[in-house]
């Protein structure tokens, strides 16, 4: 476990430096390290001023945001999968992201300020996850593994059509492009100031999910068994849903809707760590940070124009979903 975390941390650090160095304006990795080191220690400045500006005002916030979003989505997915005893679940599958996206679209349309936007995003995500859970609730008849996924799809579809309605109403020259680009997911507009503002609502739920990680294991045994182990299951589920929704909403507020990240990363990480969330949550977080950083590097270097992140993640995610569906036997216990 310690070894896995160490290797992933080192890989993440290296990838950070590389991600900062690549882009339209190339900066050698050694210079990147020097410029970062110069923040903490006195150092001779033998690089152009422009490099420093590019790093601190564009690349650095973007890299940090990519890591935060990847980590947040992945650890949320790991927790949700255990809670629902369902490896097919993720914030995106449950409709949280679409709900949150709808909240954001409303906020953009009404020109709300940042705080109001976050609250709208959170409210949208919370409504969506509640609806999915209610629709997909176990009715005692058979397995709800697919039912829950379908409920998420229905709720996601519902919010997507609401979003379409908003797009139809939006001003095609000013607001529509903003809504569209943002719904496809992008880290291009992340600024240091924005990041700083949103960091508490990312860090706090992350810490909470980590602290509760052992407890969430109990829910993976199912309702009655968890109760027989002295767990107030309703309360613990509520805690899990509130913190994951909070975290996912914050990532949506930062980068728009990026689907399929949590599903892919949490399932891959579980193959390495096993299902115990004490290990799975931190490893998912690190792996998610690496994954989204790689995706974002591709998004800004593969083509001459930036590719929206959501397109790349779903291209990678859909095959993985099919694989898990086949492997877990879908509706069979």
């Amino acid at each position, binding site marked *: 476990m310690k070894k896995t975390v160490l290797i992933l941390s080192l890989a993440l650090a290296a990838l950070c430096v590389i991600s900062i160095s690549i882009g339209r304006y190339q900066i050698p990795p050694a210079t990147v390290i020097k410029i970062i080191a110069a923040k903490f220690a006195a150092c001779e400045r033998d690089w152009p001023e422009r490099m420093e500006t590019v790093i601190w005002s564009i690349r650095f916030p973007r890299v940090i945001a990519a890591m935060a979003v990847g980590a947040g989505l992945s650890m949320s997915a790991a927790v949700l999968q*255990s809670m629902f005893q*369902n490896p097919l679940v993720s914030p995106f599958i449950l409709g949280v992201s679409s709900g949150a996206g709808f909240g954001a679209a409303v906020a953009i349309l009404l020109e709300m300020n940042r705080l109001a936007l976050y609250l709208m995003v959170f409210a949208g995500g919370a409504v969506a996850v509640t609806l999915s859970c209610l629709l997909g609730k176990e009715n005692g008849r058979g397995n709800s593994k697919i039912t829950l996924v379908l409920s998420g799809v229905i709720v996601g579809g519902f919010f997507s059509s609401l979003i379409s309605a908003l797009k139809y109403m939006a001003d095609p020259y000013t607001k529509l492009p903003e809504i569209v680009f943002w719904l496809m997911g992008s880290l291009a507009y992340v600024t240091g100031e924005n990041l700083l503002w949103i960091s508490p609502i990312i860090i706090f739920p992350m810490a909470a999910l980590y*602290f509760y990680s052992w*407890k969430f294991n109990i829910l993976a*045994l199912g309702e*009655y068994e968890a109760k027989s182990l*002295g767990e107030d299951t309703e309360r613990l589920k509520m805690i899990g849903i509130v913190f994951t929704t909070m975290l996912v909403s914050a990532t949506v507020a930062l980068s728009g809707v990026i689907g399929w990240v949590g599903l892919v990363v949490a399932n891959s990480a579980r193959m390495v760590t096993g*299902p115990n969330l004490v290990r799975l949550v931190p490893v998912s977080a690190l792996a998610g940070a690496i994954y989204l950083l790689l995706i974002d590097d591709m998004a800004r270097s593969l083509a001459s124009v930036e590719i929206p992140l959501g397109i790349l993640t779903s291209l990678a995610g859909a095959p993985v979903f099919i694989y898990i569906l086949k492997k877990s036997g879908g509706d069979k216990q």
Partner: protein
Amino acid sequence: MHNKIMEAEDISFSYGGRHVLKNISLNIHAGEVLSILGPNGAGKTTLLNCLLNFVKPVGGRIKLKGKPAEEYKRRDFCRIVSFVPQMHRPVFDYTVEEIVLMGKNPHLEGCAAPSKKDRAEALAALAELNIEHLRDARYTKISGGELRLALIARAIVQATEMIFLDEPAAHLDLKNQIDIMGVIRDLAAVRKMAAVMVVHDPDHALAYSDRALLLKDGRSVAAGAPSETITSENLMSVYGVDAAIIEFEGRKKVMIRNKI
């Protein structure tokens, strides 16, 4: 008899307008094994769910150590009562040690995870049941008998005075059935736990329990010493099966009269 741990009085339960349990009363004492028998759909599992405080009975009262069950916090209730569910296939492949450690849950404060000391306790419980070698095995990959033992180890870690088992011998081979019943007897004899089990085989009730409760259509047909409740007449009225009780080396056994 010795001290009562649980008293259930007049328990009734209905589901969707159908009466599943009607006026069941029973007392459970420390150090005894109680078998619950009855045909499929007789309400055995529902009775277990009521006694375990998973569902609230529509009528009647359940007292645990003199205090009404509904006044307990879930955590405090589960420091006294543990549960070994029927065979199930968990979705995620936790290790046996991780599953056994979860028995510590009602004893942990806040969102704390188990300590090193708790882990040592879990290993001791595995050793007691001679399944130490399974500690790192995946819970989804072990045999039915081993799975039952792992769940009993978890109940030992939970350190309760009472244990409920839902069909502990189901799907086990002959040797494993005998072993698991022996372990249950030990829990009662050595640890003075009250063990309540749902069983299908009347021979298990005769051989391993101190008392038996026969259910049919949600009603109690007979309750008391196994040799007095598991009789030809009761087996006929509960299961509609023609059987004789024979004696073999001083022990009683059910023999089915063949109707070929």
